[in-house]
């Protein structure tokens, strides 16, 4: 897949996460600059918007409320990709601190259940299973059956918007999309060639 960097203006939304640098570096390896911003006019002018997030849903939502992004994000019309906690924020509510999230995708974020041999946090490389009905979606091209890096304790169990699931004891939503709103529970910035493909797929939209 070839990207034309001159046609892409990407902005990372400032959700206060610590992995902004890693996400910027992942886009830099694709030849794409990824400035961090909470400035409405700059975000509106972007062709693609990414909502990163590491840590907990509560502090991340608080940051979005403080910088006004909680009101701006629902009004955006360009492709939006939430990563890890950033994806969780796209849903209605998170059990992590019982916080209300952005509500762009229906569903609730729950803690992953522990079980014999099933450790939480879910940490490491696990397979993406693309739903047959989503096989034609551009975001998941080349990803079915491949392993991505996950590190999280919370996830959405099931969703009509799931493009790919992953199994850790039980299935959970690994990649979701509803129109321009998309999310990845894995960390594409740390998922080697598979992650680079996911980010390139997003930028091709």
């Amino acid at each position, binding site marked *: 897949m070839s990207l034309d960097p001159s046609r892409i203006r990407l902005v990372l939304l400032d959700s206060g996460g610590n992995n902004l640098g890693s996400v910027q570096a992942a886009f830099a390896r694709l030849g794409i600059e990824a400035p961090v911003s909470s400035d409405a006019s700059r975000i509106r002018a972007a062709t693609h918007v990414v909502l990163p997030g*590491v*840590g907990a849903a509560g502090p991340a939502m608080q940051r979005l409320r403080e910088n006004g992004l909680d009101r701006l994000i629902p009004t955006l019309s360009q492709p939006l990709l939430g990563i890890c906690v950033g994806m969780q924020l796209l849903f209605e509510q998170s059990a992590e601190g019982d916080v209300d999230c952005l509500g762009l995708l229906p569903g609730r974020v729950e803690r992953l259940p522990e079980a014999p041999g099933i450790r939480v946090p879910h940490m*490491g490389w696990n397979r993406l299973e693309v739903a047959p009905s989503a096989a034609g979606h551009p975001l998941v091209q080349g990803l079915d059956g491949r392993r991505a890096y996950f590190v999280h*304790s919370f996830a959405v169990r099931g969703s009509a918007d799931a493009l790919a699931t992953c199994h850790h004891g039980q299935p959970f939503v690994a990649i979701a999309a509803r129109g321009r709103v998309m999310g990845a529970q894995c960390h594409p910035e*740390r998922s080697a060639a598979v992650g680079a493909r996911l980010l390139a797929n997003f930028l091709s939209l």
Partner: protein
Amino acid sequence: MLSRRIIPCLDVREGRVVKGVRFRDHVVMGEIEALALRYRDEGADELVFYDITASPEGRPVDREWVERVARLIDIPFCVAGGIRSVADAARVLEAGADKVSVNSPALERPALIDELAAAFGVQCVVVGVDSLRDADGEWRVRQYTGDPGRTRALPRRTLDWVAEAVSRGAGEIVLNCMGSDGAREGYDIDQLAAVRAVCPVPLVASGGAGAIDHFTEVFQNADVDAALAASVFHSGAVPIPELKRRLREAGIEVRDD
């Protein structure tokens, strides 16, 4: 299904990767970036960088090489050594590390684990445990093992400390079995299996890898999530592609793409 992880550990001293024998007589193995890229290309699932002089010298980790590694590689990495506070951890995480690992400072002040988990989430917080079996048969924790002159045996039982670290917010435990470390005769299966039984979070085996069979044994018999090693990878005695092929043949799930 979650893959078992293979983790090369790189000891960093003055901006270079070194390897010592029993923490002494360090030999320069190469440049940080070159080795990081080599392991990434060979299929390592994660890397640990241990700043071996930061802690004994009482200084924070040099942020500059962390940034260089973060830009270069596209697999996760953890930084250990010299992290004594939330501020120290924030510097390393903001520079691009995915996780921080704490050891002696957490033994000095266990609340450090709670503070790191509250600030960054449990998934960022690794607790390293150096452990040795005492004459009475109990495994107990050692502190300041980075400096042989300062190493102390603590009265704290290893199993108790692991349980406490997890309850305080450790998202992963790296158990370094000092009795087998450096001997290359295999991981300490008994001790790792005992810790596994009290450890609900991911557990990383460290200390004793000398051959491919040792990795197979530790995954099959101690049910660890990951196996860490240094010298067998640096020397080429255990090539990672061959290791993963043999693990797969033994029915152990590993990443191969």
